[in-house]
């Protein structure tokens, strides 16, 4: 009671003090003045002159201003005025050590910035809730069957109808054609737009309400010739300028005038690429919706409350197995919508997040090491302040203020950097990541960063604070003689840092090695001088033949063009699937070999530079009227004909492109040529067996709807060739879009863009970690060297050679680096398995990468040790001892 009263009074006095700091100054001045006068009086009494006495009194007293500040520090309410004083003092201190300050702030900024940016992406893509009401009850349906290869299979029209009509577990079922292209003409340059086509319940199942206008009516769904359409938010904003009177406007889609009846809100989660939504009718329905084998639909369902996905899967499996012709082991599978969207890139984002967290860890370890060295250096100063009457709490607060200053500056820099990185990611990779619309530096990311800032501030303050536990005299000695003890925490920090850097470097090494392997992989064709373009038309009948012949003619007539061809495939990016049946042997239903398949024009292989192995290429005579023919690749010859001569043998090809429109038994075709393998489906997939057929022999005319144009030229700039071809084509067909004009090199680069990003980012992280590591080791070894100056001096005075000192330093450094390497390598072995999805012809334990990493880190570490060690070995023993 008494004590608290006392405290209250003291608090009140300080409060008054803070409010009247001028009066306190005067009070202190008066008191010190009175002291000086009394001292002088005494000196005069002993015989000094008056002036001498006054000077002597001042000398004996010492620095008055400083003491006044110290004395006043006792008076003021700490939170009010001494905080400002601490800030000033802290800033002065940081200014006096610019190198230290800049490095720490930069390190913290980089570490936090990267982390906040990466976490924003991570959060946006993987963690943020779906922007659909009760999105956690939305699932996508697929099926798989071990007997046909276990691959994920999309759904067919009949399967969708069975689910919709027979299930008891969903509140709604909808099917969607995920994407197809249509030409948009009549509003400026003809363009191709992405269309998505849902069945009637789709918007209800998702819970999406139109932003403007309405969704499709039942009457519109009942009409196969319906021409009303709904715009996506993105299309409305970017292509139609957000026109508020857009409802009722008519645009030309696929050659038909179509009326805009609604605009959707932004849908970042599902089908975010869609420009235009059109109806997918099921009653009545198109033929292609009636073929059970035509599996091309996404089916999205909303689970009834209380029903588990497992129960629903069982029911769907039962429904699937009732149908004729389905594999008996077919299984239905429900995938949460979020996993469906982010599944393919989840692993990669996890890895990036881990890498960035490691960078941050290295940063913090490094900062801790530097601050520890810094504060040990400051121990004498702190001891003096303790001696002058400053309380431990006061000194701790001072250190806390310094820590907050440093980490605050680092955090600020970090948030700025994060903004920049996020903007860059938004700009460069929006297309290659799902759910990136509206990516911004997220609240949680900033919160996490601030958390790290706060945590590091506390750590920075506590580290020297721990040193203050030493008693006064020890603190005085501490900086000079406690080298053995002082080195120990540094050893741990350095080992941990190196281990982290090893993991990052190994990861980067594996990705870069994969990347290099991909770059040098034999493609099977020559991409350099070939350009590709995409043409979407409205032809689905023999009317298409003259059109495509004219397009080919126009392209071939471009000056510099040596070959022009069309195909529905894009080398290294896309090929359809086909199933092959043989004329000369029994075919087991459900066991027919599957191949890649393309419809091509005669000069496809010439335009891409694919050599013929035997037989012949197609010619213009292989048209609809001619006997059906097919060319296969070497892999198909090997697998389907066991390396025997395949020329003249006969096969039938069931072409399984999206929405294929035939159930008729495919015709037998004569094999007329064998070409060498090319990486048709993707650069990082080995060539599979492939069949090529003349586009004129597609009985369904489906392929005439859209194709890719390839022109090979003699010049170095194939894209210019593509532009000239577009002019020529549009001179003939002004409304014909000619889009995606890209050199084949660019097509390849796009197809491996994700790997490139991953390798680049990981390399960046690894380089950063290496730099930090080098910096940290250098700083700490320099510091330890300085502490051991006296020891070295003594040893050299006693006859040790310079090289002995050098070897001693390198030996100790080597032990730390070696320990870190071993730890890091072990850690890497544990975690690089996670990378395997991103690796290409590179084992997760690739010895070259591990060896290279060890060399790089050992070199970095030893260099960082060597520089300060060299300096130490050049010491003159006498000056080394004199320093003490």
């Amino acid at each position, binding site marked *: 009671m008494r004590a608290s009263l006392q405290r209250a009074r003291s608090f009140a006095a*300080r409060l008054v003090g803070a409010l009247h700091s001028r009066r306190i100054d005067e009070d202190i001045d008066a008191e010190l003045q009175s*002291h000086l006068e009394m001292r002088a009086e005494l000196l005069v009494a002993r015989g000094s002159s008056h002036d001498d006495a006054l000077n002597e009194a001042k000398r004996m*007293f010492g620095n008055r201003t400083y003491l006044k500040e110290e004395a006043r520090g006792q008076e003021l309410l700490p939170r009010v005025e001494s905080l400002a004083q601490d800030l000033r003092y802290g800033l002065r201190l940081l200014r006096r050590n610019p190198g230290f300050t800049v490095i720490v702030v930069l390190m913290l900024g980089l570490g936090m910035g990267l982390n906040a940016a990466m976490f924003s992406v991570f959060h946006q893509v993987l963690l943020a809730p779906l922007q659909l009401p009760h999105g956690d009850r939305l699932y996508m349906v697929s099926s798989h069957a071990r007997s046909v290869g276990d691959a994920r299979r999309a759904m067919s029209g009949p399967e969708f109808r069975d689910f919709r009509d027979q299930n008891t577990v969903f509140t709604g079922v909808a099917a969607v054609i995920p994407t197809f292209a249509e030409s948009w003409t009549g509003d400026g340059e003809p363009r191709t737009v992405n269309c998505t086509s849902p069945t009637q319940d789709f918007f209800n199942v998702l819970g999406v309400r139109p932003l403007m206008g309405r969704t499709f009516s039942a009457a519109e769904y009942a009409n196969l010739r319906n021409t009303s359409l709904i715009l996506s938010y993105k299309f409305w904003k970017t292509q139609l300028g957000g026109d508020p009177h857009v409802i009722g406007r008519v645009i030309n889609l696929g050659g038909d005038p179509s009326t805009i009846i609604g605009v959707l809100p932004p849908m970042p989660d599902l089908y975010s690429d869609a420009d235009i939504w059109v109806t997918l009718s099921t009653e009545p329905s198109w033929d292609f919706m009636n073929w059970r084998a035509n599996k091309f639909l996404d089916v999205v369902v909303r689970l009834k409350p209380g029903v588990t996905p497992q129960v629903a899967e069982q029911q769907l499996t039962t429904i699937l197995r009732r149908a004729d012709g389905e594999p008996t082991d077919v299984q239905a599978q429900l995938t949460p919508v979020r996993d469906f969207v982010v599944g393919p890139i989840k692993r990669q984002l996890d890895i990036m997040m881990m890498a960035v967290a490691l960078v941050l860890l290295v940063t913090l370890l490094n900062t801790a090491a530097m601050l520890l060295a810094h504060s040990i250096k400051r121990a004498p100063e702190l001891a*003096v302040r303790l001696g*002058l*009457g400053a309380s431990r709490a006061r000194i701790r607060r001072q250190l806390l203020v310094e820590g907050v200053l440093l980490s605050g500056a680092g955090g600020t820099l970090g948030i700025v950097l994060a903004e920049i990185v996020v903007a860059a990611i938004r700009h460069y990779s929006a297309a290659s990541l799902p759910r990136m619309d509206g990516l911004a530096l997220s609240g949680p990311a900033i919160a996490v960063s601030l958390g790290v800032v706060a945590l590091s501030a506390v750590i920075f303050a506590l580290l020297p604070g721990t040193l203050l536990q030493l008693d006064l*005299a020890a603190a005085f000695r501490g900086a000079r003689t406690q080298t053995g003890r002082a080195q120990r925490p540094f050893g741990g920090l350095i080992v941990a840092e190196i281990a982290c850097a090893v993991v990052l470097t190994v990861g980067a090494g594996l990705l870069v090695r994969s990347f290099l392997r991909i770059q040098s992989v034999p493609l099977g064709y020559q991409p350099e001088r070939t350009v590709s373009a995409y043409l979407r038309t409205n032809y689905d009948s023999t009317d298409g033949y003259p059109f495509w012949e004219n397009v080919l003619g126009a392209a071939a007539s471009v000056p510099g063009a040596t070959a022009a061809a069309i195909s529905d495939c894009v080398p290294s990016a896309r090929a359809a699937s086909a199933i092959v049946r043989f004329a000369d042997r029994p075919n087991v239903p459900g066991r027919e070999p599957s191949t890649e398949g393309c419809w091509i024009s005669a000069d496809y292989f010439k335009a891409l530079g694919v050599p013929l192995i035997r037989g012949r290429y197609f010619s213009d005579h292989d048209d609809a009227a001619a006997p059906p023919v097919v060319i296969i690749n070497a892999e198909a010859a090997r697998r389907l004909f066991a390396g025997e001569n395949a020329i003249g043998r006969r096969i039938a090809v069931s072409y399984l492109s999206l929405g294929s429109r035939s159930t008729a038994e495919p015709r037998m075709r004569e094999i007329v040529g064998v070409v060498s393998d090319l990486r048709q489906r993707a650069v990082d997939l080995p060539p599979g067996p492939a069949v090529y057929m003349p586009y004129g022999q597609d009985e369904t005319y489906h392929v005439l709807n859209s194709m890719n144009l390839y022109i090979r030229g003699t010049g170095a700039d194939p894209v210019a060739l593509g532009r000239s071809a577009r002019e020529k084509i549009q001179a003939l067909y002004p409304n014909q879009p000619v889009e995606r004009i890209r050199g084949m090199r660019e097509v390849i680069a796009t197809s491996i863009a994700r790997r490139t990003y991953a390798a680049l980012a990981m390399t960046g992280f690894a380089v950063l970690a290496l730099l930090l590591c080098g910096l940290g080791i250098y700083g700490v070894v320099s510091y330890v060297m300085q502490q051991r100056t006296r020891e070295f001096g003594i040893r050299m005075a006693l006859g040790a050679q310079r090289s002995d000192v050098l070897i001693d330093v390198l030996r100790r450094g080597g032990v730390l680096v070696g320990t870190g390497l071993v730890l890091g390598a072990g850690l890497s072995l544990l975690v690089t398995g996670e990378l395997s999805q991103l690796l290409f012809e590179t084992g997760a334990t690739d010895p070259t990468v591990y060896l290279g990493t060890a060399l790089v880190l050992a070199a970095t570490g030893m260099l960082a040790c060597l520089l300060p060690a060299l300096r130490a070995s050049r010491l003159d023993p006498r000056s080394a001892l004199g320093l003490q």
Partner: protein
Amino acid sequence: MPRNDALQGTLDLLVLKTLAQLDAMHGFGIALHIQQVTSGALRVEEGSLYPALRRIEHEGWIASEWKTSENNRRAKYYRLTAAGRKQLAREEQSWAQVVKGVGALLRYA
């Protein structure tokens, strides 16, 4: 660097004890008293005395007041509070223990 820095931590004890003996005294008088009583063996660094006085005052162990000295000079006089007396007793006790301990060690050596 202050001399006798090992004794800095005991400055509180010296100040409290001095004020217990002198009733009320100004800073200069306290410094002088310590120096004279210890025959010059302990010299209080004047610079560290005033911050210490402020601190001790805020602990509530001493109180201050401006008065006129015997030489007709205005000075700030410090005097022990009740809490200060208790603190002095505590510090004397712990000091005695230290002395005993160190003495025992010295005798043993």
